[in-house]
C-alpha cells in the first residue's frame, strides 16, 4: 500500500505537471526550431509572439462570452483559437515582409538577425502591454477538474490522490495531435518535404525548383499556428501574463538546443527532457521517502535537490552538459 501511495504521489506532483509543462515547452521549441531551420536565426521575439497570439485569443474569448457563446465543458478559448491563429499569421507575415526579408535577401549574419528580432520583441512587448496591460488575466472557463484528488482517494482507498485538471489533459492531447499532424506534414506531404529540403541545403533546393518565398510563408504560417496553440495552452493552464511568456523563452531555447537546433523531433523530446529534470529536481521528496523507507531512516529535511528559485540554473546546466558532450544536441540538429 505504501508503495502504491508513493507511486501516486510521484504521478500527481511530478509526472502529470511535467507532462503538461513539457508539452508547452515542446510546442514552443518546435516553433523556434522551425524558424531556425528554415530562416536560420534564433528568434528572440518568439515569446512575445506567443503572448500576442494569446492576447488575441483572450480578446476573442471575451467577445464570445459577451455574446453568450461557450464551449460547454471545454474552455471557450478553444473556439477563439482560429481568430488568434489568423491574427498571428498576419502579424508574422507583416514582420517578415517589413523586417526580416531585407536581411534575408542581404544574407546578413545570424547575429544581425538576432539583434533585429530583439527590435521586433520590443515592439510586440509594447503592443501587448498597451492593449491588454501587464497584469494577470485568467480566461479559463468550463470544467476545471476531470478528476479531483478526493474522488481518486475514495475510488482507490489510498492516502494520496491524483488531481487531474482539464487544462492538463487538453494541453497534453492537443500537443500530441498537433505534433503528429506536423510530423506527418513534414515527412509525407510534398510541401513538407520541400521545406525539409530547403532547410537542409538551400542551393540544391533552389536548383530543384523549390520556391523559397512559398517555403518561408509556409514556415511562418506553421510557426504562428504553433505559437498560438502553445501560448493559449500555457495561458489556460497557468494564467496570462506577458512577462511569463518572456521568461518561458529561456527554457524553450534550452529545449531547442538540447534536442538539436533545427530538428523538430528533437525539440519535441527536448521540451520533455527540460520539463522532467526541472520538476524532478525541484520537487521535495520527503513525503515520498517517508512512504518507502522504514521509520528509523525517515529524512528530516525536505530532500529537495535545488529550490524552485533556481529553475534557470537547471535549464542552463542541461544546456552546458549537452553542448559539451553532444554539441549538435541529443538528436542531430540542423535539418528539419
Amino acid at each position, binding site marked *: 500500500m505504501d508503495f502504491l501511495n508513493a507511486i501516486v504521489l510521484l504521478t500527481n506532483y511530478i509526472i502529470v505537471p511535467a507532462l503538461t509543462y513539457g508539452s508547452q515547452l515542446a510546442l514552443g521549441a518546435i516553433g523556434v526550431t522551425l524558424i531556425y531551420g528554415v530562416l536560420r536565426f534564433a528568434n528572440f521575439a518568439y515569446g512575445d509572439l506567443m503572448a500576442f497570439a494569446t492576447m488575441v485569443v483572450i480578446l476573442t474569448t471575451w467577445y464570445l462570452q459577451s455574446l453568450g457563446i461557450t464551449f460547454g465543458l471545454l474552455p471557450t478559448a478553444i473556439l477563439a483559437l482560429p481568430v488568434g491563429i489568423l491574427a498571428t499569421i498576419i502579424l508574422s507575415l507583416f514582420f517578415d515582409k517589413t523586417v526580416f526579408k531585407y536581411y534575408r535577401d542581404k544574407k546578413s549574419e545570424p*547575429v544581425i538577425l*538576432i*539583434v533585429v528580432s530583439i*527590435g521586433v520583441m*520590443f*515592439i510586440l512587448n509594447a503592443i501587448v502591454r498597451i492593449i491588454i496591460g501587464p497584469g494577470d488575466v485568467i480566461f479559463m472557463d468550463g470544467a476545471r477538474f476531470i478528476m479531483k484528488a478526493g474522488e481518486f482517494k475514495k475510488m482507490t482507498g489510498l492516502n494520496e490522490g491524483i488531481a487531474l485538471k482539464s487544462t492538463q489533459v487538453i494541453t497534453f492531447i492537443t500537443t500530441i495531435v498537433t505534433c503528429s499532424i506536423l510530423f506527418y506534414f513534414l515527412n509525407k506531404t510534398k510541401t513538407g518535404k520541400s521545406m525539409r529540403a530547403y532547410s537542409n541545403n538551400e542551393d540544391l533546393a533552389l536548383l530543384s525548383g523549390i520556391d523559397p518565398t512559398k517555403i518561408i510563408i509556409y514556415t511562418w504560417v506553421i510557426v504562428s499556428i504553433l505559437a498560438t496553440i502553445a501560448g493559449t495552452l500555457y495561458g489556460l493552464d497557468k494564467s496570462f501574463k506577458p512577462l511569463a511568456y518572456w521568461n518561458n523563452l529561456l527554457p524553450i531555447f*534550452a529545449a531547442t538546443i538540447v534536442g538539436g537546433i533545427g530538428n523538430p523531433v528533437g525539440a519535441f523530446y527536448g521540451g520533455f527532457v527540460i520539463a522532467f529534470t526541472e520538476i524532478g529536481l525541484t520537487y521535495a521528496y520527503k513525503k515520498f521517502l517517508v512512504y518507502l523507507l522504514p521509520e528509523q531512516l525517515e529524512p528530516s529535511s525536505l530532500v529537495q535537490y535545488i529550490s524552485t528559485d533556481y529553475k*534557470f540554473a537547471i535549464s*542552463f546546466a542541461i544546456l552546458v552538459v549537452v553542448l559539451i558532450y553532444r554539441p549538435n544536441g541529443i538528436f542531430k540538429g540542423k535539418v528539419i
Partner: protein
Amino acid sequence: MRNNLDIKLAFGGMALLLVMVGFMQSWGVALAILNLCLISAVMSMGVNIQWGYSGLINFGVMGFLAIGGFATIIVSVPPVTEAWSAGGFGIILSGLILFILIASIFFVHQKFQSKYKNYLLFFLVISVIPIMKLVAGPSISAIESIDAATSGFLGGFDLPIILSWFVGAFFAAIIAFVIGKVCLGLRSDYLAISTLLISGIIVSYVKHEEWLTRGVKNVTGLKRPAPFEVDLQNSDWFVNFIEYLFKGRLSKVTDFDEKIILLNDLVMTSSSIFVKLCFSLIFSIVLITLLVFSEKALRSPWGRMMRAIRDNEDAAKAMGKNVVKRHLHIFMIGSAIIGFSGAMLVTYDGLFTPASYQPLRYTFIIWVMVLLGGTGNNYGAIIGAFVVWFIWIESAPFALFVINTLMSGIDNTNQLKMHLIDSIPYFRYLMMGLGLLVVMRYRPKGLLPEKIIKN
C-alpha cells in the same frame, strides 16, 4: 581625429536637449537624466568593447550589473556583528569546503586519467549543492533569523563606497572568466542564449540568498561619495553660499519672514541639485578616463589585433594570434566595465533592489544604446547611451502630449483615452523597438559609425 564634426554635432545637440529639459521641466530632472546617461554610457562602453571591438555577443549584461550592485553591499555596508557571531564561522567553513570541492573538480578534470573520469566528474559536480546545503544550511538560517525585519544578513566591510566600484569590476571579471571558459567556444547564437541564462541565474542568486544580500527585502541607505542633502541644508557654508548666489532675488523681498521662507526653499532645491552635480562630476571623470583609455587601446597594436580578429578570425589565427585567449580577455574587460557601472548605478540610487533587475531594462536597452550609437566607436556608444536614456525618460511625457493632442476633442472620461493614458509607460518599448529597427535598416553602423583608423 581631424574630421570629427559629426561627434561635436551629436554631443552639442545632446547638451542642447538636456538644457532644454532644464528650462522646460526643471534642472533637477535634467541632472537626473544626465547622471543616468553618464552611467549608461559606461555600461554601453563595456558592451561596445565586447561587441564592437571583437564581435562577442553578451546578453548577460543584467547579471554583471547585479554583480556590481552586490559588490557595493559587500564593501560599504557596516558588518552585522551578531550575524557574524551566529553564523560567520559556519559560512567561512563552508566557503573553504566549497573551495576544496571546486579544486578537486579541477584536479579530476585536468590530472585524472581513467575511463571513469567523466562519471566521477559528474558525481562531484552534482554533489556540490547537497554538500553545501548540509554544511551552510544551519548557519544561513541562523543569520537570516537575526533581526530579520531590519537586517538578517552578514553585512559588509564598512569601507568607502567608491572602492566597491573597483571590487564590482573585479567580481564581474572573475565571473566573466568562468563564463568565458565554458561558453566562448560556442557559436554566436548559443553564446547569446547561454549568457542570457547565466544572467538569469546570477540575478536569482542575489534575489534569493538573503543571508548575503537581503534578497527581495532590499538594502537601503547606502553610503555616498557625495554629501547628503540633509547635511548640506544644516551646514552654514552652504546656506551662506546660496544666500550669496541668490542675493539679487533675496534683496527684492523686504519682509523678513518671507525672506527666510524663500531662503529655505532655495536651500532645499539647490541642495539636491548640488548633490546631483557632485555625482555628475564623479561620473564624468570616470567616463572621460574610460574614454581616453579605450581610445588609446583602440589605436594601439592591441586594438588593431582585436579588429583583425573581429573582421577575419581565420586570417588572425593564421598570423599566430590566440583568438580564444584574446576573446576571453576582452570578455573579461568588457564585463568588468559593466560590473563597475553596476556598482555606480547602485551607489547613485542609494539602494540595492535585486527584484528590479529585468532583462529588458538592464540587458536589451544597453544593447539598443550600443547599436543605435555606433558599434565599434566609443563616441558612438556614449551618444547612444545619452540618446536612448533621454528617449526612455522623455517618451512618457511625449506620449502623453501626443495622446492629448490627437484626442483633444474627446473628454477625459473616455474609456479608450483613459486606457491609453494608463499604458503610457509601455510606449517607450515601442519607441525603442522602432528606433532599433529603423537604425538597423537605414544606418546599420549606428549614428556615429566606426571610423577606419589608418596607422
